Structures are given as structure tokens and as C-alpha cells.
């Protein structure tokens, strides 16, 4: 369990930040803090800037206003302790690499240039695969696994990296239920161990279930706060511009006013 101090440690601090690709900001007014052991959901329609925000935290997109501080440092300086989990579909399924090798990739920054991963690294990668329930799939080619399995392998890579901040880009899109459960369980364990987790997702029920806070985005931030007070129909309607939404289970359905 994290200590009082560690729990209050600020993993990610965003102060009135705006991000831009060229000169025109695509995302503005983002403001919030994520503490160690907390999880935040980034919620908003397509094109809202969720991916942009994740990339800004990684230092891949310039911040043209305000600031982003990652683990007490500027984004570029903190990269080794920040793990990015992309959508599994963005990766080539024909590539001749095994699940085990992908998980091991998370250890590369730690291993450093030129040196080969050692036994400790291999064990960490194997353990990470175990965390997501794929320990016996290490020898399988990454592309031959199902979508949900591939997403879990990518999370295992982040686990192997032993990052203190994890950024996940829509990890629950189109994956099977058991993979989703395994992903959530692993994320919960990471959170309990003190990591901060930022997840962009469309799945409001999931955000409700798993996250402590949500950040509502659509080109600018509409709200950032605890799930209970922020994931409300009014704020959601404002964020999504009143479009029709369908949720799982017995959650709210918003329609065009």
C-alpha cells in the first residue's frame, strides 16, 4: 500500500494547458492533477483531443500554453517512467515478433543501449505476461493472437516497464469480455501498487466502474473531477454536444435535445 506521502504524490499535473500541432491549438484549457494510485478517464467524442492530450503528456505534441508536469519533471524528461499503451490495431500483425518479445520491449529503456536484456529483464517480462493472463502465450507470434489478447500483451509491456504513470489509448475498444476483465484486474493491481493511470475511452460505464476521476474533453476541457460529480448527464450532454449516446447496463442514454 502506498504511504500517505506517496499517495498524495502528484504523478501528472496539467495547468491550463493548450496543445497544438502547428500553430493552431487543437486542445485548450486542460487543467487537473492525477495522484499516484489514482486513475482518470479521458472522455469525449472522436476528434476531441484525447489522443492529443496523451501525446502532449509524452512530449510528442508541443504545449503552447500553460504547463504539463510529469512526475515532477517536464514531459520529455520523464519518458522512461511513463508507459504508453497504444491500441493493438495500430500494430502490424504480420510482424515476426512473439508476445514474449513484445513484453520484453518494455525493459529496453532500463537495459540501455547496446546491452542485451538480462535474466532479471526476462523474468520481469514473463511476470508481466502472467499479470495479464498470457504467461503460456509468450512463444506465440503477436499477430496471431486475438485483439483482446494483443491489447493485454501491450499492457504487459507497460507493466514490464515498471512505469509510474500509464497512458492507455482506448484500450477497451472492440475487445472480448474476458480480456476486458483481465485488463481491468491488472490495472487495479497497478493502481494499488502506486501507479497513476490515464485511460481514454468511450465506455462511460467502464469509466464509472474503474476510474476515480474523469476529464471531459471536446477541443477544450468541460470538466475534471471525481466520477460521481462529473459523469453527469448535463456535463456529458455539453461535452458531446447533445448527440445520441448508448451505454451498457442501466446507464443513461442521452439524446438530441
Amino acid at each position, binding site marked *: 500500500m502506498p504511504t500517505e506521502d506517496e499517495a498524495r504524490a502528484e504523478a501528472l499535473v496539467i495547468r491550463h494547458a493548450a496543445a497544438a500541432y502547428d500553430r*493552431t*491549438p*487543437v486542445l485548450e484549457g486542460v487543467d487537473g492533477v492525477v495522484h499516484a494510485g489514482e486513475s482518470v478517464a479521458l472522455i469525449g467524442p472522436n476528434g476531441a*483531443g484525447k489522443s*492529443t492530450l496523451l501525446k502532449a503528456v509524452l512530449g510528442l505534441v508541443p504545449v503552447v500554453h500553460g504547463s504539463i508536469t510529469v512526475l515532477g519533471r517536464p514531459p520529455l524528461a520523464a519518458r522512461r517512467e511513463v508507459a504508453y499503451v497504444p491500441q493493438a490495431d495500430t500494430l502490424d500483425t*504480420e510482424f515476426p515478433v512473439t508476445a514474449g518479445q513484445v513484453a520484453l520491449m518494455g525493459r529496453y529503456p532500463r537495459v540501455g543501449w547496446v546491452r542485451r536484456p538480462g535474466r532479471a529483464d526476462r523474468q520481469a517480462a514473463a511476470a508481466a505476461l502472467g499479470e495479464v493472463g498470457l504467461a503460456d502465450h509468450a512463444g506465440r507470434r503477436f499477430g496471431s493472437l486475438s485483439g483482446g489478447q494483443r491489447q493485454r500483451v501491450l499492457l504487459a509491456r507497460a507493466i514490464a516497464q515498471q512505469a509510474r504513470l500509464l497512458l492507455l489509448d482506448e484500450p477497451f475498444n472492440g475487445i472480448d469480455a474476458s480480456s476486458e476483465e483481465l485488463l481491468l484486474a491488472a490495472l487495479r493491481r497497478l493502481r494499488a501498487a502506486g501507479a497513476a493511470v490515464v485511460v481514454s475511452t468511450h465506455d462511460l460505464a467502464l469509466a464509472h466502474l474503474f476510474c476515480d476521476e474523469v476529464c471531459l474533453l471536446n*477541443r477544450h476541457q468541460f470538466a475534471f473531477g471525481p466520477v460521481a460529480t462529473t459523469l453527469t448527464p448535463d456535463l456529458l450532454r455539453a461535452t458531446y454536444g447533445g448527440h445520441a449516446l448508448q451505454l451498457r447496463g442501466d446507464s443513461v442514454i442521452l439524446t438530441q435535445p
Partner: protein
Amino acid sequence: MSWLTEAFSGSFAQRALLEAVMVGIVSGVIGVHVLLRRLPFFTLAMGHATFPGVVLAALAGVNLLVGAGLFGMLVVVAVALLGARERIDDTSAIGVVLAGTFALGVLLLSAQSGFTKDLSAYLVGSIVTVQPADLLITAVTGVVVLGALATLHKELVLGAFDPGGLAALGYPAVTLDIVMLLLIELVVVTSVPAVGTILSVALITAPAATARLWTDRLGPTMVLSGALGAASGIIGLVVSRNLNVAAGATIVLVAAALFAGSLVIAPRRGAIPRRLVHRRAGRGAGSVSDVSVSERLA
């Protein structure tokens, strides 16, 4: 029409000029399609792959271009088949075909008589020795290619942008793709006398890429591209005559220079005007998707 027959049978300079203009126009126009479909590498491969056809034609005493053309069609089929296989990507497949066919040609040639002058002319062109028969072939091919492109214009454009959509509308999308590849092959083969096979891809790619820097609309792009191709041909010929250097290569360098110049000064996408336009009303996330769409049409 006597000027036409005179042009075709006139001095070597007149023939060279006519060949340069015809090849320039046809290359320029089809080049727009080549860019739309991301086929410059394929075009380069075509230039290399038709080589065995040339050697075989020489052995058989047949017109070289005919041999190249026929062999090229075999190659188009090979590339299409390979592309459908798993575990090999299109780029590597084209690379293998390019290397394999060219080596085959070199092998046949060396077996026959060792390396001769014909080889270089094939690779880098020899426009000043263009014969009336070559001119005729170029003219006929040009008419066929431009005619096909005009007739199938909307289908080919849709197929480049959205192959699934084309098939969904009931068109034979794969056949149309192959037709496109064959048309490219025809243009490459008929560029041989002017610029040779290795450089033919330049006349096909550069004018079209230059035109794209000046306009976003397809029709004007094609017209401009054809004009630039012809201009490159004329200017290149004149410069090469004055400096006494290889004509085909000079034509290519002119086309490349036009491209480089346009990169710097062209308004919509050129470097200088962009810096003059600082802030625009924010289009938010639109600017990201802007790039991806325009990349597709580039």
C-alpha cells in the same frame, strides 16, 4: 497535314523534339494517377523489369519496344499475384521482381554477346537516335493511354481513393487496377528512347508532383503536369544540345529542377508563402485530419 509527316520524317533534331514532347505529355498525365496510387516504386520496377523483354526481342529480331511491352505485361501479372500472398508485403514483392527480372536481362545479354552499347541506350535513353518507327509507336501509345485515361477517368480516380467503394458499386475493381498497371507499363516502355528505363519514372513522377504543389484540383493537375512534362522535354533537349551532354538525363534534371523550385515558391504548399500566413482562425482538430486527407490525394 504535311507538317506532320514532315515532322515524323524530318531531321533527327525534329524527331527528338517531337518524341520529347509526346513522352512528356503522356508521362505527365499518367503521372498524376501514379502519384494518387502511390506507384512510383512500381513504375521504377517496370523500367527494370522490361529489360529481359528487350534482350529477348533483340535476339528474336523483333522491335525492342514490342518485346519490352509484352514482357512487361507478364511482370504486371507477377506483381499482382505476389501482392496477394501473405508474408510478403507489396514493397518487398516489387523489389524482388525488380531485381530478379533485371538480373535475368543482364544474364541473357551477357550470354549472348557481353555488354554492348544497346544496354546503355536502353537504361538512359538515346533520344537523338529516335527513329520514325519509334515516333509512331510513341504517338499511337500516347493516344491509347490518354484515351483510356479519359474514358475511365472517374472510375480510376474512385478506385485510387476508395477501392472498396468502387467494388461496392459493382465495378470490376481488380481489373481496373490491372488496366492501370498496364497503362503505366506502356508509358514506361515508350519512354525508353527518350529517357531510358531508369529515368522514365522521373518524367512520370516529377511533373505530376510539381503540378500538385500548384493546384488541388485533379483536372488542372493533369493539364499542368502534361505541360510541365513537355516543357521539361523541350528545355532539356535545348540545354543538352548546348552543353553537349546526355539528353535524357538533362530532361530529367530540368523536371527535377522545376519540382525543387516549386517546392520553394508554390503558394499553397510551398515553404515561403506558408511562413507569411501566420495565424488563421483555429480549425481545431480539423488541422490534423486536413493533413491526412491531403496526404491521400497527394
